[in-house]
C-alpha cells in the first residue's frame, strides 16, 4: 500500500516510471494493453498504405510513400520494444493480435481505393493520431513517453505530406479534385471516430487521466481535431461531408453532426470493411514467414555453437 502511494506521488510529481521501478499490476497491464495496441496499429496501418506502393502515380510519391510506411514499421518496432520492458514478449503480443485478443486502431479497417486516400490518410488519420498522441509525450511511463516523442515528430511530417498530396490534387484537374473530395468524404467520419467513443461511453478514462495516459476527454480531442481541420479543408477548397458543420461564435468552436456510432461499434467488433482482410494479411505473413524465422534462429544457434567451440 505504501509502495502504491509512493508510486502515485511520483507520477503526480511528473517523475517518469522506469521499467525496473515498482509499479502496480494494473498499471503494468493497462500500459501493456495500450502500448501494444498502439504498436499493432502501426503494423496493421502499413497495409492500407502499402496497398498503393506498387501503384503510386509518380516516382517522387512512391519514394515518399515507401519512406512513410517504413517509418510506421519503425514506430511499431520501438513501441514493441518499449512494451517488452513491461515483461511481455513480442511473440506474445503478436499472438494476441493474431487471435483477435488485442485490438488495433479501427481506422485501418477501411479500404484504400484511390490514390487520394494516401493524401486523406496522411492529412486526417495522422492528424487525428497526433492529437491523440501528443499528450503521451508527457505520459508517466518513461519508455512510452520517449517513444512517443519520436513518433509524434515523424507523424507530423507525415501529416504535412498527406496534406500536400491533397493540395496537389485539389489544385489539379477536375478529376483529381473530385478524387480528393471523394477521399475526404470517405475518411472524414472514420477519422472523427478515431478520437474514441463519446465520453459517456468511454471506459478507463479516469484512471488513465491519473496516469497521464490521457489528458483530455475524447470529446475534447475530437473538438480540437475538427477545429484544426476545417480551416485546412477550406484551404484545399474541399467540403467537409457534414451538413451540420458550422462555426459557433459563442463556443469559439465548430458544431458538427451526429456520428454514426453503430458503424463505429460494428467496425470495433470486427465487422468493418477490411477487418478480415487485415487479419488474414498479418496472420498470413506470419505463417508464411515461420520457416524463415526458424532458419534464422537455427543459424544463430549454430553460430553461437561455433563461437563457443572456438573459445574452447
Amino acid at each position, binding site marked *: 500500500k505504501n509502495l502504491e502511494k509512493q508510486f502515485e506521488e511520483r507520477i503526480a510529481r511528473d517523475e517518469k516510471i522506469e521499467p525496473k521501478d515498482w509499479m502496480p499490476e494494473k498499471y503494468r497491464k493497462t500500459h501493456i494493453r495500450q502500448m501494444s495496441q498502439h504498436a499493432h496499429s502501426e503494423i496493421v496501418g502499413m497495409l492500407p498504405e502499402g496497398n498503393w506502393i506498387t501503384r503510386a502515380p509518380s516516382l517522387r510519391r512512391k519514394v515518399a510513400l515507401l519512406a512513410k510506411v517504413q517509418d510506421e514499421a519503425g514506430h511499431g518496432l520501438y513501441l514493441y520494444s518499449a512494451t517488452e520492458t513491461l515483461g511481455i514478449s513480442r511473440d506474445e503480443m503478436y499472438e494476441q493480435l493474431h487471435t483477435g485478443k488485442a485490438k488495433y486502431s479501427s481506422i485501418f479497417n477501411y479500404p484504400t481505393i484511390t490514390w487520394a486516400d494516401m493524401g486523406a490518410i496522411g492529412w486526417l488519420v495522422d492528424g487525428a493520431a497526433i492529437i491523440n498522441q501528443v499528450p503521451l509525450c508527457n505520459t508517466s511511463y518513461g519508455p512510452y513517453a520517449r517513444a512517443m516523442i519520436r513518433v509524434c515528430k515523424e507523424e507530423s511530417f507525415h501529416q504535412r505530406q498527406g496534406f500536400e*498530396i491533397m493540395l496537389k490534387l485539389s489544385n489539379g484537374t477536375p478529376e*483529381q479534385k473530385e478524387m480528393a473530395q471523394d477521399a475526404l468524404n470517405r475518411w472524414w467520419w472514420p477519422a472523427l471516430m478515431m478520437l474514441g467513443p463519446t465520453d459517456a461511453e468511454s471506459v478507463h478514462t479516469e484512471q488513465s487521466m491519473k496516469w497521464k495516459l490521457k489528458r483530455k476527454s475524447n470529446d475534447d480531442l475530437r473538438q480540437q481535431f475538427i477545429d484544426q481541420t476545417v480551416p485546412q479543408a477550406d484551404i484545399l477548397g474541399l467540403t467537409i461531408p457534414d451538413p451540420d458543420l458550422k462555426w459557433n461564435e459563442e463556443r469559439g468552436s465548430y458544431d458538427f453532426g451526429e456520428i454514426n456510432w453503430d458503424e463505429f461499434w460494428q467496425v470495433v467488433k470486427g465487422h468493418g470493411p477490411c477487418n478480415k482482410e487485415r487479419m488474414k494479411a498479418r496472420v498470413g505473413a506470419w505463417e508464411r514467414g515461420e520457416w524463415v524465422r526458424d532458419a534464422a534462429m537455427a543459424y544463430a544457434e549454430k553460430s553461437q555453437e561455433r563461437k563457443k567451440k572456438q573459445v574452447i
Partner: protein
Amino acid sequence: MKQNLYNYILGIADNSLILGQRMGELCGHGPSLETDIACTNISLDLFGQVRSYFQYASKLAGDGRTEDDIAMLRQEREYVNVLLVEQPNTDFAYTIARHFLFDVYHLLFLTELEKSKDLTLSAIAKKCIKEVRYHERFTSDWMKRLGDGTAESKAKIQEAINDLWTYTDELFHQTKADKAMVAEGIGVDVTKLKDAYYEKVNEVLTEATLETPESKYFQKGGKKGIHTEHMGYLLAELQYMQRAYPNMEW
C-alpha cells in the same frame, strides 16, 4: 552519342526500377518486422537511384519527357531490365536469392561505373554504391541464414538459386549502347565482371553450405525488351495511375 547514353542509362536504371517494384510488393507482408523494414528500405533506395538516373535521362532527352514518363509510360518491349529482376516473390527464398544474385553484380558494376568519364554517372554511382553495399550484405547474410539454417530453409533457398541461376548470364551480355559507351570510357564493360561475379557468388553459396549450380543453360531477352510473362502484370500495376489519368501532376 546522346541516344546511346540515354539507352545506356535506361539499361542501368530499369534494373533498379523493376527490382524496386518487386521489393515494394512485399511491404507489410515480410516474415518479420525487421525484414519488412529492410525490404522496404531497399525498395526505397532503388527508387531513389532510379530517380537520379531518369532525371539525368530526362535532361538528355530534352524533349519534355519527365522521369515519370520514362519510368511509367513505355511499352513492355521498351523496358530493358534483365530477366532476373522481374522474377516474382514466389517466397522469401526467391526474394532473397533474386536480390542476392543481382546485388553481387550491382556492386561490381557500380564500382566500375564510379570511374566513368561521365561525371554525372560517376557521381550517381558513388552515391548508390553505399546503399548497394548494404543490400549485398543484407542478402548475403540471409543466404547464409537460409542455407545454413534448417533443412527446410536449405531446400527452399537451394531451389530458388537453382531456378534463378538461368538468369545470371544475361547480366554480362553487352548491348549496342553498352559497347558504344565502353568505347567512350563512359560505360562499364560488363563482360569483364563475369569471373569476379561467379567467384563471389560461389564464395557466399559455399559459406551458406549451398551447391553452386552447374547448369550451362541460360535465358536472355530482357536487355532486348523480350521479357518473361511476369513482366506484363508488374507493369500493369506500375503504370496504372499514369495510364488511367494521363497528363496530370501528382
